[in-house]
């Protein structure tokens, strides 16, 4: 357990190992979420269920130049990553803030970055499992043939897309109440997913929605999914760099909002 024995004089100078704190914080944040069916089942089950229904059962058609079973991996992958990240950060943060648990943590010597890092790590893990499950299902049952290198890039891109949604989760978590958080998350999550073409191919969406998605960095799920569509040969509109820039810009704005919320909390508490 403890790396230094308490009988050693040096022990009083020892600071607890920050890496070890981060590891434990992340481990228990992950276990906490894993054991909550509301989180683990809903974030994992829905994208996979949708993929089985629309990607595999009804997967004979093609969308644009690729088959539905390929098309829906980036789409539901983005959907899954977004859900895991938003619920993993916003819902837990809003609960911890509103019901005093964050205060107990803040009164302890825990470095606050460990708390946030744990949420990001947990979101990334659930996102990875989500994406790998979709890919495995597609390859095993959907006749999906993607070169290994492309598959690796696809997984990495989708999983890194967890970060902008974590920042968005922080922004929501700092303003939503403990009980209203899931509803607030869904108010953003579901319409954003729809407008980004995750449920219905993007070209079937109304023209003004398409314009918003393409030209304004307001719909991160659109930009993330387009990055992956490019990798599987189905990209539409906008250079790749613009999608990355949009995700980065969106994240920075969300971090700003979260910071304002953090300051507001500090003020309210004193």
């Amino acid at each position: 357990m403890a790396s230094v024995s308490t009988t050693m004089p040096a022990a009083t100078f020892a600071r607890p190992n920050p890496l070890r704190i981060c590891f434990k914080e992340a481990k228990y944040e992950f276990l906490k979420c894993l054991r909550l069916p509301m989180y683990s089942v809903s974030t994992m089950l829905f994208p996979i269920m949708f993929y089985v229904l629309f990607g595999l059962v009804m997967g004979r058609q093609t969308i644009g130049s690729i088959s539905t079973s390929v098309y829906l991996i980036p789409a539901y992958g983005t959907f899954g990553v977004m859900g895991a990240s938003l619920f993993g950060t916003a819902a837990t943060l809003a609960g911890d803030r509103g019901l005093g648990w964050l205060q107990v943590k803040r009164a302890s010597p825990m470095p606050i970055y460990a708390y946030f890092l744990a949420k990001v790590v947990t979101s990334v893990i659930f996102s990875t499992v989500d994406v790998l499950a979709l890919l495995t299902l597609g390859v095993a049952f959907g006749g999906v043939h993607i070169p290994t290198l492309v598959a690796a890039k696809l997984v990495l891109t989708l999983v890194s897309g967890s970060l902008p949604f974590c920042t968005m989760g922080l922004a929501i978590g700092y303003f939503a109440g403990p009980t209203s958080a899931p509803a607030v998350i869904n108010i953003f999550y579901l319409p954003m997913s729809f407008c980004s073409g995750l449920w219905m191919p993007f070209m079937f969406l109304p023209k003004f929605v398409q314009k918003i998605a393409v030209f304004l960095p307001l719909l991160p799920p659109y930009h993330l999914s387009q990055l992956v569509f490019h990798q599987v040969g189905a990209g539409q509109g906008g250079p790749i760099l613009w999608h990355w820039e949009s995700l980065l810009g969106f994240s920075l704005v969300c971090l700003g909002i979260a910071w304002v919320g953090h300051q507001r909390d500090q003020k309210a508490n004193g």
Partner: protein
Amino acid sequence: MRLQALVDDVLSVEEFGDGDMAIAQVVPIQRSRAHGTVAEIQGASKNFGSVRALVDFNFQVRAGELTALLGPNGAGKTTAIKLLLGLACPTSGRVSVFGADPAEATTRTRVGAMLQVGRVPESLRAAEHIDLFSSYYPNPLPISETLAIAGLEELRDRKFGDLSGGQKQRVLFALAICGNPDLLFLDEPTVGLDVEARHLLWQEIRNLLGRGKTVVLTTHYLEEADALADRVAVINKGSIIAEGTPAQIKSRTAGKKIRCVTQLSAAVIRDIKGVIDVQADREAVVIQSNHPESVLRGLLSLDLEISGIEVTSAGLEDAFLALTREEK
């Protein structure tokens, strides 16, 4: 402030050489400090918008003692604790813990806190919560020892959400002590507990004091302050209105109460020498006096039928009610 922390570290290192017990680490440090004050609020005011939670608040915590902050709900007890934990900053005035800023990480490694909390992650087991909080501290107690002190050995693998109210409080208590802190803040630790659980927690708190820890406890149970505290600070409407040992606080009201069933009218009783106050209480009367013996002699000679005589000390409760009434 940092210098002070460093001095403390050096002092504690010297003591570490002498023995490997935690007590050896704690006691000499406290003695080395002038007046043995480990935490202090000096002339602090705290406003939340237009609400004045604390008004020119002065409070000292002495090493090795249990200080109780006693007051009704909304008196400012929790606000005072938040200032001492560095969770809130005073609007004016000064707060120091171990001579340093309470919000500094080095200060916090020597402090443990049990706060009132609405929800704790319920899917983690008792031992997992303790394992996590232990990792925040440089010299935590072994987890098995924390579990033993908090009486949680049998419940270590139980999920927090499956515990009873009293068991949950014990986990929160375990999180406060697991880092082996020198100074412990317990904010209403026994609220919602049944009598047995409350007495168990009291015993655990006494054990901590026995190991040289300093404890600050807030409560609105007068009995609790009476049973545990070396010093009581009575707080009402954001100010301390009385301070002293439980006995000193109690002596602020008339000494004894005599309760008896008698035919005598209140006016006749008032004429007996030594009677301070007479009040009807259902079928009986309650007489306050500093000289109960002479009052009893008078009563017995005037009423041969007198019955149901009880003589009790005025409790902390009476003192408290009297003190808060004075305030109004």
